[in-house]
């Protein structure tokens, strides 16, 4: 199908991709990059920059956010109080690199410090139609604004530093539609876990996922960010939601978003970005919103997800030999028994936070459940940014958490990346709102169950995985 001018209908990916194309060479594209996001772990890119004989091409378009190694407690004591010299060294090195190159730097003591995927949207830097690259796999988060956002390794981050451009092969587009109305207590986290369970943890390889459908349109920006954040867990290069009034309302008045006449011009452009009617997708998947239940991962891959009222699968019942071996290995690692109800799984710890679920909406959802009881196990609340932390405190959420026996901490990646000295002990079991349940992710032999903020808070006050619907009637 073509429009009157004979132009074939395009997806948002086509439009944004074409507008950033500098050239194409033998089937690969050199794309202009609007923003590069870096965290302390990007040391290898900075280490190699002098060897290239180049410097940073557009330093004001490189956002340096300290998040992976920052302390989430006693931060006011400064770097000197950090016992682990290697952790301290990473923070000092990052500060040295960021400030010597003059990058916008959101270090430990900055009032807007936080996880880069929370901070860039808060600042109004993440805008529709941009191409954003981050030295972090969860850079897909920014696609929630209708931009293209890719996670890259150190070599590509180095390349963007030196050239403000990125070489890429053009991916296909997969449309995932969630139609209808989500049931009460079903969160964006449950939606994305269900998507990964349906298409598989490699179902998105070679693709960018367009999230569409009435349930997605009804979501706030925070929820859309949760969806896009975990596109990478389905194997996809990125995920996005077409920009609409919800997006425009979020951006209005933010520090670095366009204003006045510029905003009018930007809005006119942003409104052209959604995929055209009749655009062709490599694959289309539709999920009925009413079929999605509060969910939790039982295994060591994100596809190993079930509704909370399910039981740990029995590998013996799996016909495929490889799936059987995989399930068996996951059950052993997680210390579970086949057939065990998921709600019988007792947890040692609860983690509420991360780039997936560390925004204000997430803390509100968790606090509403925390208010129903007292934490039976250590439960940490780690806001995604200091801005989120202040907002939560203004709403009194910190008091709700503290009153319920939860720990109220400072912003960072914390237990999700387990890099700053905070990690699970061996065989410790954690209900977490983060994004990965991989073996060893939160600490050697640590066990992770991924779920929504409300479900995490429910696990904290009962001591075991809990169906939120049974608590919050």
């Amino acid at each position, binding site marked *: 199908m073509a429009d009157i001018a004979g132009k074939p209908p395009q997806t948002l990916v086509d439009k944004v991709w074409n507008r950033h194309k500098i050239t194409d060479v033998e089937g690969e594209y050199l794309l202009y990059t609007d923003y590069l996001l870096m965290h302390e772990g990007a040391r290898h890119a900075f280490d190699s920059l002098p060897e290239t004989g180049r410097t940073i091409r557009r330093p004001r378009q490189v956002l340096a956010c300290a998040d992976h190694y920052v302390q989430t407690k006693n931060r006011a004591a400064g770097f000197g109080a950090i016992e682990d010299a290697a952790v301290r060294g990473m923070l000092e090195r990052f500060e040295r690199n960021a400030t010597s190159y003059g990058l916008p730097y959101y270090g430990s003591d900055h009032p807007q410090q936080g996880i880069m995927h929370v901070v860039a949207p808060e600042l109004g830097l993440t805008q529709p139609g941009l191409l954003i690259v981050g030295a972090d796999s969860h850079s897909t988060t920014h696609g929630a604004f209708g931009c293209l956002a890719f996670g890259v390794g150190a070599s590509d981050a180095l390349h963007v530093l030196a050239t403000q451009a990125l070489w890429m092969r053009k991916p296909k587009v997969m449309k995932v539609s969630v139609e209808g109305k989500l049931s009460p207590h079903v969160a964006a986290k449950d939606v994305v876990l269900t998507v990964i369970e349906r298409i598989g943890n490699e179902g998105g*390889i070679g693709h960018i996922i367009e999230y569409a459908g009435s349930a997605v349109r009804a979501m706030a920006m925070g929820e859309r960010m949760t969806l896009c954040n975990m596109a990478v867990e389905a194997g996809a290069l990125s995920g996005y939601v077409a920009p609409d009034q919800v997006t425009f309302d979020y951006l209005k008045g933010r520090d670095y978003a366009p204003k006045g006449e510029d905003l009018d011009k930007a809005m006119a452009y942003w409104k052209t970005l959604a995929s055209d009617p009749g655009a062709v997708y490599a694959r289309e998947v539709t999920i009925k919103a009413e079929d999605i239940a509060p969910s939790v991962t039982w295994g060591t891959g994100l596809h190993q997800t079930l509704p909370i009222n399910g039981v740990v699968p029995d590998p013996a019942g799996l016909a495929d030999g490889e799936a059987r071996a995989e399930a068996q290995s996951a059950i052993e690692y997680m210390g579970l028994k086949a057939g065990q109800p998921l709600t019988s799984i007792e947890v040692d710890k609860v983690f509420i936070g991360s780039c997936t679920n560390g925004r204000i909406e997430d803390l509100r959802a968790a606090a509403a459940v925390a208010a129903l009881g007292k934490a039976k196990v250590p439960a940490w609340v780690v806001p995604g940014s200091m801005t989120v932390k202040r907002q939560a405190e203004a709403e009194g959420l910190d008091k709700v958490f503290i009153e319920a026996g939860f720990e109220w901490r400072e912003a960072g990646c914390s237990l999700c990346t387990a890099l700053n000295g905070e990690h699970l002990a061996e065989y410790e079991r954690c209900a977490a709102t983060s994004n990965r349940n991989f073996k060893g992710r939160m600490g050697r032999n640590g066990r992770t169950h991924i779920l929504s903020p409300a479900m995490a808070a429910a696990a904290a006050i009962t001591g075991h995985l809990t169906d939120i619907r049974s608590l919050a009637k």
Partner: protein
Amino acid sequence: MKKFTTWTSVAAPFDASNIDTNQLCPTRFNKVARGPDYAKVLLHDLRFDITGTHKTDYFLNTPPYDKAGIFVADRNFGCGSSRESAVYALEAFGVRSIIAVSFGEIFFTNCLKNSILPVALSEEACAEIRRQLHAKPGAEITVDLARQVVRDVEGKEHHFDLHPLRKRCLLDGLDDISLTFQYEKLMQSFEAGYNAEFPWLIKPENQPPASTPKA
């Protein structure tokens, strides 16, 4: 970048899918500076126990696989985190090529940028090569980039696809930054047009402030 032409080596079979970058390089080792120290980091928590002792019952720790220069895996190898340290660990161990059914996207690209060749073959071909390796531990296989074939233990050749630009960069040892600066004029004219169309993006008040070194 180091050139990649052909590579013949002992190949180690990995039957499990979803070997993620966190297993290849456990997170706490991300701090390590690139270099030979990364050889010990590779699959560290499978190869060493909690006290740091070498586990002799893990296949990669003993001959012939302690010298493996090729891994033959299954689906979704290198999924997860973007950490390039996973590639540094493979490199330091001596691995120059990985054959699998599918790869984590970021890991796949990271390999190509470090002269490690990721080869995608069919599920059947990967399973067949792993079977051959289990039957003849320590057998060598060859990855020939110019001809885009893997020669298995029995001498059978399996064709693989690779984007032509990536192939050229590997064969010539050309790194991306050198490549990109060949297009400097195009980049400048692109930036001029882009800035003219979206002037608000480069207004100083619309960009976060530059930092200065702390005293």
